[in-house]
């Protein structure tokens, strides 16, 4: 028992000051996920990767918006979203002081507008996603006419594209077989 007392006296008081003084957490602590809405493309990679379904994304064609929502309540702070995000728009911060009295305060959302199809005018893809793809193309060296063409293709919704291909007659040579005969 004297050994114990010795240790006790040597140790003194082990208690941390927190909350009266801020608490040091390590550099890469996995705390509250912070969204950088400017960088987010609403591509949905995070919503697919999230093991707990804490991240959801829903597209509203009427208002032409796409809504991204994070539920801090359900989040398990694993950082998979950060790992899969192509633009590093979401990162886990050092903030751990998340307790709330109203559950609503645990939700964080972001609204992104959709781009309309250049033909039928129906919204079909997140504008930022579209722009990002085009910028990437530009950076990878696609320029001028090519880029314009690509933009036009990308701004067409799948339905329209399909119908285009159906009616795309100039690529079809009706007389090909005849010519082969001759």
């Amino acid at each position, binding site marked *: 028992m004297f050994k114990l007392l010795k240790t006790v006296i040597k140790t003194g008081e082990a208690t941390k000051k927190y909350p009266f003084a801020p608490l040091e957490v390590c550099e890469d602590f996995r705390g509250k996920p912070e969204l950088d809405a400017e960088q987010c493309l609403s591509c949905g990679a995070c919503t697919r990767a999230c093991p707990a379904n804490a991240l959801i994304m829903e597209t509203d064609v009427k208002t032409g918006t796409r809504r991204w929502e994070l539920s801090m309540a359900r989040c398990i702070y694993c950082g998979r979203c950060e790992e899969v995000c192509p633009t590093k728009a979401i990162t886990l911060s050092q903030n*751990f002081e998340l307790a709330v009295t109203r559950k609503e305060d645990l939700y964080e959302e972001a609204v992104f507008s959709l781009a309309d199809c250049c033909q039928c005018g129906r919204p079909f893809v997140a504008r930022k996603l579209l722009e990002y793809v085009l910028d990437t193309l530009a*950076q990878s060296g696609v320029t001028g006419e090519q880029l314009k063409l690509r933009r036009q293709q990308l701004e067409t919704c799948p339905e329209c594209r399909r119908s285009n291909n159906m009616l795309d007659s100039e690529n079809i040579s009706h007389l090909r077989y005849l010519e082969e005969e001759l």
Partner: protein
Amino acid sequence: MKGIKQLVGTAHTQTVPVAQAPNSQQLKDALIKQIRRSAYVYRVDCGGCNGCEIEIFAATTPVFDTERFGIKVVASPRHADILLFTGAVTRAMRAPALRAYEAAPDPKIVVSYGACGCDGGIFHDLYCVWGGTDKIVPVDVYIPGCPPTPAATIYGFAVALGLLDQKLHAKTHQPEVQKASLKHTGIPLDIKVMIERQARLLAGYVQGQRIADEVMDVLATCSADNVDSKIAAYLTKKDDPRLTEIVNILLSQTMEALTGLSGCSNSTGEKVKPREVTADE
């Protein structure tokens, strides 16, 4: 059946939270004033993975010591002022949890602890789980985390007792700029992608990304002749053998990709037992 609502036929059900007395809020406010400096907490474990339990523990032990605020974990709901619910409320734990809730004297503060308690966490929609504390009892304070650290726990108690105000508030982002900026435009796209990918394989998604960014920042400022010197400068500044190794691999592969000819190919999946880098302290 009490507390159970049918969804489709007899096959699918969900729970109905216990109703609260109309004046309960005033009573609770009064209670909070009484228990500011002396709060008895009773843990109700509704099916936690016990990560939460262990952290609650850690919060009561020397390093965090909740007792200095007069917060004491008691072993009987009869003594409780605060009920601390952990776990996603499994099917078998629902009834006992409700019994504990009713055993505690009114008014009482209910705290929902951890991702599972707050909203069922990763288990939210399983067949043997009701999905969170507030599915069975009215909750006053939510402490998210998986598990919440002892510090987060203390903060949560402080919020529950009205000693600190909550920092988190519902937030809606409305990005004006409908254009995400590209990073490292100075680097050819395929090289950039290659570097980022390799960096992740070498050092993981956090440090790897950081290293990739730093390296590319350096590269962006380089011309063909002074690359080596600048990189060397960067590495000496950092003075980390592991970092040096990673950066060298990245560079050699960059050279490979640029020139086509294979530099010192220190490919990632090598099966020869590699030498050991020892931390030089």
